[in-house]
């Protein structure tokens, strides 16, 4: 693989190239921030099914994908959409209706699992969850585990510390590495080779990207490598990990991108309302996902005014005094 080649692709093409029915994948971001939403909507629009998904704390992205019928198995620590929905609504519904198999871990465990994948080791240790049902209850059946070589045989392993009482830890929990086929992240800035710069919190995006066979990056700004190299200390993901770069301004909308725009409370609240009702939800999907051809058309439907309302203030990096008004249905 020639890492330096220009990896810029159209998002539709990138998804078609790297994401398939049954792919094991993860998306970056955290609850209502920096989810790669343009990619999420593209996956739904392309009708990709049976995805095996890995996330730590996710919200908007994962819930749309579940609502779109794309995910059949999910390894997760937390599914919440901030103030709009403490528990993601389609996620809750799918679990309660038995249409989604879930395996529960903690946030740190999911992070360590991505880190183990990035580091090339089969597991990493932690003291988290000893004595809890995270250890006792495994979400996937033995049959599921045996059938898919991409799933570890064991959810986790409790190990007596081979160094005795070293570090005052008599036992540790080993959590298995994750190796997604594809990870999609949305970043503030990338160059055409794929080097990424994330502003603000990185969550577990770096570990998720480095654990993956393929990484699709969507970015607010696409710049020249020379520009990225003026401040290498601000670049977190080197191009050697990246397969495709897609320039998608507002690519995380309706979730927030620090220093660019905020989440859109109006969208999130309307989504939450629609998600509770099957008919409203179909209508929502038909209008905002299936009814448009790409993220540009989606944003046109949202309208310039809404995007202006969530513009980040240059001093703070978010939309100051953003209102969580509840205007009912989106129009």
């Amino acid at each position, binding site marked *: 693989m020639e890492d330096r080649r220009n990896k810029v692709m159209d998002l539709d093409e990138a998804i078609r190239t790297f994401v398939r029915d049954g792919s094991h994948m993860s998306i970056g971001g955290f609850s209502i921030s920096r989810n790669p939403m343009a990619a999420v909507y593209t996956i739904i629009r392309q009708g990709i099914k049976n995805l095996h998904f890995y996330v730590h*704390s996710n919200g908007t992205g994962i819930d749309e994908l579940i609502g779109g019928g794309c995910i059949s198995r999910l390894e997760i620590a937390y599914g919440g959409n901030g103030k709009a929905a403490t*528990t993601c609504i389609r996620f809750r519904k799918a*679990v309660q209706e038995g249409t989604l198999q879930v395996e529960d871990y*903690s946030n740190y465990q999911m992070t360590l699992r991505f880190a183990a994948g990035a580091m090339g080791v089969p597991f990493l240790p932690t003291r988290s969850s000893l004595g809890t049902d995270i250890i006792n209850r495994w979400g996937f059946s033995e049959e599921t585990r045996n059938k898919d070589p991409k799933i570890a045989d064991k959810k986790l392993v409790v190990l007596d510390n081979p160094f005795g009482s070293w570090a005052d830890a008599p036992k540790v929990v080993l959590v298995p590495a994750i190796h997604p086929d594809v990870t999609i992240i949305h970043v503030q800035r990338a160059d055409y080779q794929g080097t990424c710069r994330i502003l603000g919190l*990185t969550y577990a995006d770096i570990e998720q990207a480095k654990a993956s066979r393929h990484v699709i990056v969507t970015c607010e700004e696409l710049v020249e490598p020379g520009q990225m190299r003026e401040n290498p200390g601000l670049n977190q993901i080197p191009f050697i990990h990246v397969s495709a770069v897609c320039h998608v301004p507002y690519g995380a909308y309706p979730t927030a991108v620090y220093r660019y725009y905020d989440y859109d409370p109006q969208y999130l609240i309307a989504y939450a309302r629609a998600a509770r009702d099957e008919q409203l939800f179909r209508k929502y999907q038909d209008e905002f996902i299936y009814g448009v051809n790409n993220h540009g058309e989606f944003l046109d439907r949202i309208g310039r005014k809404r995007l202006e309302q969530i513009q980040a203030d240059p001093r703070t990096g978010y939309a100051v005094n953003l209102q969580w008004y509840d205007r009912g249905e989106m129009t």
Partner: protein
Amino acid sequence: MNYTSPEIMTIMAAREIRNGDIVFCGTGISMLAAMAAKNISAPESVIFFESGAVDSLLEELPLAVSDSRVMYGTDSNGGLMDAFATMQNRMTGDRVIAILGAAQIDKYGNLNTTVIGDYFHPETRFAGSGGGCDVASFVPRCIVFMHHEKRKFVRKLDYLTSPGYLDGPGARERAGLPPGGISCVVTNMAVMRFDEHSKEMYLDRFYPGTTPQQILDRMGFPVDISRARQADPPTEEELRILREKCDPSRMQL
């Protein structure tokens, strides 16, 4: 003094925070409690989030721990690897006090934030552990916010997401966990603590206007009320700071 239920809960939790503590908090009322402590009695405390933000300035109330509002004016912006390592690390972790919430709690302070009903066919699915299980595993002191309802204070959790004292004295140690567990439960009626020896929940303080019996009536298991006294209500000064400095736009209160 007039105050709302969220206000007294916030003040009761804030009083648990000592100057110099590192405060792990989520959003909503737990963040308000951390901010109130910082403005009232613990100015040297450090607020930090599992998403990786250390000592955020918090000009506005964030609505998620990943909110851009936690990133502004921080001491450093890392990621989850950094944040949880800080809590598992014995040097820094021992100075952390965490504020958690839950759908169910049992008499040993174990928490459920995962499901109601059978794990494989749940009646209600919640968001899941998030960082809750991690911090409850790692740090020596946790405050839990709960509403005082029978269905929330249960004899047996439907799923044990985050470890309190597990099944009693010595259980954390036997499981391999560091010492720690839940220090107190702050509800809309009372502050509950855990007996030093039996590790069982007891009623420590009931709020003005409630009685120990009313509290017992709203619990799925009996607790010792022999040590119960009335809580000192929020002072005028505490309420003023909370209202004016922590949530002037009344998003939470």
